[in-house]
């Protein structure tokens, strides 16, 4: 069931030959082979058991603009046709400058047991056991899913660049719906890692699934808070979503260059307190694996905010040329058929010096918000507004957790949020997911995010009193 690297490398050679034959000023390509396996187990048994495969080449040509075309066939005629189409598109457009360099590298994520070798029965059994464990008293419906992704990407350019990145990503997701005093409440959680099947086979998923069921029951008996502005202590996983939505998108170079970001033109300005440092790193061990981006650029740590000061944006080759900087390795695609966009990798906040419990003890009146049961967020970088859903959360009064709360949605302005951070914890957690990712202009990419526990001020939506 493996990925055919030789086939991609042979097609990369053909691409170089054909690009040369067409006399193109610059051309690069993203070749990909991918397998995605999913088993979903719910109240009726195996709801879905599927294997999805993709293989193909996406080419980019410059001169004078930028043109893209793709093919899921790797024969010479198809590659030539894609180059010709991309060249025709580039001829009709403009602004095709990009930073040109050529790296050669091979990077593979580590695993002990290839998850492609796990049988469908193995996936089903893990999902079934998790589903069963989540069915605690009060839970009326639940779903468990196991996901496996194997992704092989080859970047090649007419300048001689050749970068191979291969990764495995595995995970388990559990969702439970409970019925309680305040109605039906859905809560979910998931655990993914860039690793092999050993991550799944050695995990105590039944305990985690049971906890999801228990949280759903707690949420179904919890009420919503009064809507308003609150002092909110954000748990690690929620800080990640927040930073991703509130700042990460605004830092993406394509929106910055277009002026469609509230932090455009503000390098060197103070945008957060001095205990806030935020980075994007393709190589964090707990995040998603992007040692090189989809333009063959090395993705090491990019400092976006350093001690409160805006230091840099995330860029691909095109934005880097426009800003006059080195690309940061954030040029990514969902798959071979899509154009390159600037995307985050693992975007997170560095630790501060507060103990986690101390942050709660020192909060007179507020909310401890987690992501357990939250569903993500969205941002509007141009207006600087973001929103995200909080999971099962807790009311804090006089430094103590006094009652559970449910179903909150929070929103705010990016710059107000950063400026209002007044406590940063010591422990950092970064997570990724095989079940989802970040969406932008119709492309989904895998990302990681996270941070320490953080306290700030947010508007929180509840239900009318």
């Amino acid at each position, binding site marked *: 069931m493996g990925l055919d690297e030789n086939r991609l490398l042979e097609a990369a050679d053909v691409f170089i030959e054909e690009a040369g034959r067409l006399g193109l000023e610059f051309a690069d390509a993203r070749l990909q082979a991918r397998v995605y396996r999913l088993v979903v187990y719910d109240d009726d048994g195996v709801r879905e*058991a*599927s294997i999805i495969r993709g293989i193909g080449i996406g080419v980019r040509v410059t001169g004078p603009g930028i043109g893209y075309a793709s093919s899921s066939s790797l024969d010479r005629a198809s590659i030539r046709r894609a180059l010709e189409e991309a060249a025709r598109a580039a001829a009709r457009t403009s602004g095709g400058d990009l930073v040109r360099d050529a790296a050669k590298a091979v990077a593979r994520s580590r695993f002990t047991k290839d998850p492609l070798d796990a049988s469908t029965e193995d996936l089903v059994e893990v999902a079934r056991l998790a589903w069963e464990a989540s069915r605690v008293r009060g839970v009326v419906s639940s779903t468990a899913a196991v996901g496996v992704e194997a992704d092989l990407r080859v970047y090649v350019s007419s300048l001689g660049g050749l970068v191979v990145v291969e990764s495995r990503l595995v995970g388990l997701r559990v969702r439970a719906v409970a019925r309680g005093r305040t109605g039906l409440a859905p809560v979910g959680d998931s655990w993914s890692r860039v690793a092999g099947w050993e991550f799944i086979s050695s995990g105590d998923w039944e305990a985690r699934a049971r906890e999801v069921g228990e949280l759903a029951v707690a949420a179904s008996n919890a009420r919503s808070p009064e809507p308003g502005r609150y002092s909110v202590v954000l748990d690690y996983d929620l800080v990640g979503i927040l930073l991703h939505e509130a700042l990460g998108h605004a830092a993406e170079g394509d929106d910055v260059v277009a002026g469609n970001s509230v932090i455009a033109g503000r390098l060197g300005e103070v945008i957060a307190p001095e205990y806030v440092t935020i980075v994007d790193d393709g190589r964090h061990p707990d995040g998603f694996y992007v040692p090189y981006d989809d333009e063959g650029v090395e993705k090491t740590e990019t400092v976006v905010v350093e001690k409160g000061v805006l230091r840099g944006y995330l860029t691909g080759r095109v934005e880097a040329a426009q800003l006059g900087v080195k690309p940061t390795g954030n040029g990514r695609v969902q798959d071979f058929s899509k154009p390159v966009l600037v995307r985050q990798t693992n975007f997170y906040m560095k630790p501060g010096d507060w103990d986690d419990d101390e942050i709660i003890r020192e909060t007179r009146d507020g909310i401890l918000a987690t992501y357990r049961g939250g569903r993500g967020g969205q941002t509007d970088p141009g207006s600087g507004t973001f929103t995200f859903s909080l999971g099962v959360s807790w009311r804090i009064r006089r430094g103590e957790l006094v009652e559970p709360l449910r179903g909150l949605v929070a929103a705010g302005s990016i710059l107000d949020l950063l400026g209002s951070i007044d406590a940063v914890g010591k422990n950092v957690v970064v997570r990724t997911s095989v079940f989802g990712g970040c969406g932008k202009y119709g492309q989904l990419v895998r990302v990681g995010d996270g941070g320490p526990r953080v306290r700030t001020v947010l508007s929180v939506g509840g239900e009318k009193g």
Partner: protein
Amino acid sequence: MSDLQAGIDSVVRAALRAGARAAEVYIVESVSVSVHYFAGGHIRASTDKLLKVGVAAEVEGGKVGVAGGVVASLDDAVALAEEAVSVARAVKPLEGWQGFNPNPSQASVRVADGRVREFGIAEAVELAKRLASTINEVGVRAAESGVDAAYGRVILANTESSRVIGYEYSLFSAHVDADAGEGSVYGDWVALRRLDVEAALRMAENAARRARDVGRASIVDSGVYNVILTPKVAADLLAYALAPAFSGEAVIKNRSPLAGRLGETVLSGEVTIIDDPLLDMEYGSRPFDDEGVASARKVLVKDGVLKAYLNTRMTSARLGGEPGNAERRTPWSLPSPAPSNLVVEHAHPLRSLDELASEAGSGLLVDSTIGAWLSDPVSGKASMTVTLGYKVEGGEIAGPVKGVVVSGNIYDMLSDAAAAGDVECWFGVCTRHMLVRASVAGK
């Protein structure tokens, strides 16, 4: 479809040879053009020709596996058929499985505009530039504009019938971000079956005029407000907070607040909700659902009383009621119930937005939002974050607002709502301007 017949035959033969009792092939083929313009004159264009295939195989009564992918031709899908059978062997029977549709058929409705097929890179680049210049002419900077045109077909065939059914579709969309300076950016989009350049240009001009207001917008005090939703905003909220509750699958699995309530009053007597896949050239329309059941209108709520759920063949066998509402999230997913065009009607709408504002007296008008998808259809909690709205004072539209969260229970909001103006369809939900009572989280 005759060009794919031989390929389809080899895929199903491969599944049967591998040991399947039955098999189904679902194909989405598309050709698309996409242009993205960035301020400063940088333009990126791409073309795509994609063939996506899903193969579902059944072995030994109710054990179903799926394999799929983006392939160069149906020859590659033969291997997918074999994989689907191998996956099917490894699972237990799916409870309630009805087999593949033995009678695939289709109704008559138009969902394709041939002009979209002819709309190429040159035309898309030209339109992206015109969208930008339309914004610039209002004295506002065009930060970004984009144009997408896709034309394709959907084909379904299985071993239970010799019929192969299919239809052609088109999708034309455009988006802009207009920047009036200093954090004052307004983004908007249109997505239509028809090629409608004028609609795209009107959208761009409106975005430019709104952009100025974003920078001046402020947050308001928290409280309970009279809130006017534009049809686009109302459609978005209904799509996420309400529509999934009608899914027969959600009903069976205790994930719907409408479970067990057929024949009961679930909304006020003013409200009627219909699922209509036969609206000419509308976003959600199609001649057959994703199980090959011919499309038909279905009344879900009549004068506030719940009449029907959205069903696949599996859920209708269990719940009763007609199938015909199956949707495959991707070509390689098994079908689940979903709406096509959800038409939400109030019995006595007012004539105009002005009348609605007078009725509101004071409150908020919500023009654009993010995060409606974070609503919870299981509990009915609706919420969205306002990226641009306006105060309503003394029945008149006043100063701009942003950054507040509007929330409430969607059933209460819809039941107590007053509606006005014309019905507009946005992304598969059709509704009017609506005045609702909702919580606002601000200062």
